[in-house]
């Protein structure tokens, strides 16, 4: 069960829009090594864990990743506020805009929609924990 707290883990307060930067940062939201994949990975792998310490750790880390997902979403949202048509075109944000306008969508920087194939959940604790470690390395 999840309970929402009406606060970001760390405040996001962006003054100047920057759609070019948003286009890069969106990959940390819905790209192959982004926070969506991270949270779903840990929260899915935990069901097959045989020890209470592992169930607790994956539950808490998966939840922590949801905090990150929310902050990245807020960053993208704030970077794309009040854009003019010229801003959008000049920043190369038009390719994103035509599909999503300024909605925050789980896609990579190159526009590839989030793919669950970026996440492994094999039901074998050793396999899954290795995959988690590798995924954390990729996200650094």
């Amino acid at each position: 069960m999840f309970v929402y707290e009406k606060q970001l883990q760390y405040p996001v307060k962006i003054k100047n829009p920057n759609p070019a930067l948003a286009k890069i940062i969106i990959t940390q939201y819905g790209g192959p090594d982004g926070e969506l994949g991270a949270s779903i990975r840990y929260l899915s792998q935990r069901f097959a864990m045989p020890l209470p310490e592992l169930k607790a750790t994956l539950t808490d880390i998966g939840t922590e990743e949801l905090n990150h997902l929310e902050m990245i979403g807020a960053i993208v949202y704030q970077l794309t506020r009040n854009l003019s048509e010229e801003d959008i075109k000049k920043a190369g944000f038009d390719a994103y805009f035509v599909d999503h306008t300024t909605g925050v969508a789980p896609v990579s920087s190159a526009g590839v929609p989030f793919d669950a194939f970026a996440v492994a959940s094999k039901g074998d604790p050793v396999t899954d924990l290795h995959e988690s470690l590798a995924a954390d390395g990729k996200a650094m």
Partner: protein
Amino acid sequence: MTEREMLLKKIGTCKFAVTDIDMFLDTHPGDTEMLKKREEYIEQLKPLVEQYEEKFGPLTKCENDANTWAWVKDPWPWDMEG
């Protein structure tokens, strides 16, 4: 920084400490020193959350004014203006 932002930052700092300790305790559940430390941060949090909610509205759905569902009120966490 506004008073609201200042309070949120203090609350966020304490919450972050608690979250970090939680994850340590997941693999060290018998560490009494850490359990004590966690309690200390929770105690620090209480008056800050109380002060915040009284002035700026609920952080969780527990806090509720009988006349209105304050939960829905702006600003939501991603709404900060730079």
